[in-house]
């Protein structure tokens, strides 16, 4: 048995704070949830991990054709081909949108066990983000291959900022996702609204266009979207442009605020999950 809870107290009072100690004790379950998602995802697909690469790759092809060739949008940097630029952005964007989606649906997806077995309800939410992180690592292999093909010399900052940017994007997706996951238990509308929201967000985030397309005085507002901060920063890192640290600070703060609101709402509604799910 997990060597926890030698004294459990169940009360009618609200549990309003996140019990980090308990989360830590259930870390193995987090791992098992993530492991299950990854196993299942790669099990019954012919391409398996190939999808992690194919998705941003095909999207890049489509965007390059329509936005670059037809609409004439460029990478905003003469040395960087649009395809490479778009691929890097889409890679991170996919990580964001997929985690947002899986985290938001995580409670509903495990409603069967939720009503039968106790574990911290945050565990399935947190582990739902793992799959998209694994996907991102697969997808990044192609990115490094593309760097070679296009003969673009990557900036050292890109490698250094890879993990921090990933962390920011996953943290933001978790914050918003946890809020939606809790909301989803009560309002199934979330499930229908989510694909639409992510689609709108894609166009509001500098993924398929560079941040420089946004008028300079508005650029700082774009950073309120943490995905925008992460994607602009990783691009700046790899493609030798200057990093907007103020913008990043705004992105990080915004992600933290999302997380606080998400956790607050989650904790507030948590005790009713099993009753109404």
């Amino acid at each position, binding site marked *: *048995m997990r060597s926890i809870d030698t004294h459990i107290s169940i009360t009618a009072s609200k549990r309003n704070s996140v019990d980090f100690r308990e989360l830590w004790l259930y870390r193995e379950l987090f791992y098992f949830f993530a492991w299950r998602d990854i196993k299942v995802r790669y099990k019954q697909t012919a391409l398996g991990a190939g999808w992690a690469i194919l998705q941003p790759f095909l999207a890049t092809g489509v965007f390059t054709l329509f936005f670059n060739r037809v609409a004439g949008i460029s990478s905003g940097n003469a040395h960087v081909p649009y395809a490479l630029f778009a691929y890097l952005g889409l890679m991170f964007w996919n990580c964001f949108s997929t985690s947002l989606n899986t985290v938001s649906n995580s409670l509903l997806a495990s409603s069967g066990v939720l009503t039968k077995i106790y574990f911290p309800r945050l565990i399935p939410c947190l582990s739902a983000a793992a799959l998209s992180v694994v996907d991102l690592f697969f997808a990044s292999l192609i990115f490094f291959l593309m760097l070679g093909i296009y003969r673009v010399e990557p900036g050292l900052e890109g490698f250094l900022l890879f993990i921090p940017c990933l962390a920011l994007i996953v943290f933001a997706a978790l914050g918003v996702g946890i809020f939606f996951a809790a909301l989803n238990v009560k309002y199934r509308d979330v499930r229908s609204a989510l694909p639409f929201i992510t689609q709108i967000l894609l166009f509001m985030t500098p993924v398929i266009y560079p941040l420089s397309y946004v008028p300079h005085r508005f650029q700082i507002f774009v950073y309120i979207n943490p995905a925008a901060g992460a994607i602009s920063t990783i691009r700046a890192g790899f493609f030798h442009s200057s990093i907007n640290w103020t913008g990043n600070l705004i992105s990080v703060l915004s992600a933290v605020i999302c997380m606080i609101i998400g956790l607050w709402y989650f904790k507030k509604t948590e005790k009713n999950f099993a009753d109404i799910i």
Partner: protein
Amino acid sequence: MNPVIKVSDISKSYQISHQNKPSYSTLKDDFASIIKKPFGGGSTKTEEETFWALKDISFEVNKGEVFGIVGQNGSGKSTLLKILSRTVDPTTGTIDMYGRTASMLEVGTGFHPELTGRENVYFNGSMLGMSKAEIDEKFNAIVKFSEVENFLDTPVKFYSSGMYVRLAFSVAAHLEPDILIIDEVLAVGDASFQKKCMARINAIARSGRTVLFVSHSMATVKQLCDRAMYLEKGVAKYIGETEFATEQYMAKNMPAVVETHFEENPKKDAQFTNIEVQNAQGEKVEALNMDEPWQLELTYNIKEAAENTIVTVEILSNEGQPIYMTSNTDFDKTISTLETGRYKAIIPFTKFSLVSGVFYLRASIQSPGKVAHDLRENIPLKIRQNTKDVRTQYFGGKYIGYISDKVEWTITRRER
């Protein structure tokens, strides 16, 4: 002794709406109700009603005790189990549990169809509270118990439902917490595996763990539990002796007042008019003393001569299992015709006696295999025990089986 489970004033209420609305709502509904009644708190009160699934439940369970919970469907057993296993929060009250707790409420929840048997053992085990190291250690035992060794690396979606539940039960059955919450519906699979499940549950219950046990089988509850609680409509009607709790449960399953005198039904050709449990002196009694002779008095009316017809009496256990049957033809080689008339039969029980507890009588006038002219069931036969019996001391104060006759053993030492 300090209680390891302390439940104080637990209540749980649900809002039930009379519109058959799903428990989840859509934003539209909530917006609509806010627009309709901006100051009405978002919901219309007339449609909702508070339903108390549990009301002020308090009890304590000591270390090592096996505590039974019995009650009809809808009595709040499941809600209580959910609260104890922490999937649902109580509306009021507190529970303190000292020790590592695990619950076996439903097997196979969390099994993923795409994962193999082996993978599911790990995933499910982890979800039920085992660490990876522990699963590693018990893996072989789990697999052996489940009898699905050959299909371990097959996704469970290809399993037969029997294999599936066997594996699922095995995982749950290998939890080793200090406090275990068991729902007896766990005993799954075919008859032989069910037997194995029950044996396992028995072993767990007897291994010194504190166990909360919910069951519909009074035989199992009596056999396993040191104490029990009888729940009725969310209220704890009785907490204490297992015998009394199960008795109340059984009594509730029967008509409140047991009529032993029956009105004559003009449509029936043959029928009982009275069935009476009596002591040896022929006096009607409410309960018999154990190991004292007793008798049964039947009066019946035959309006039309019935060919090949017999009168039978069965004694049934508390669980409805027939344990004895006698008929008016016990000594006859052929079945004769019951001639018209009013009869009184005295059936003396002197040869064997029953252990203390509640039994039920069933009497019939029937042509075996053809027609039942009259059938009277659920006539209680209560047997009281006035003195302490040395025979029960090793078995938690309970009798094993139904017959209380003592036997003098003749023992000679053959070899030293």
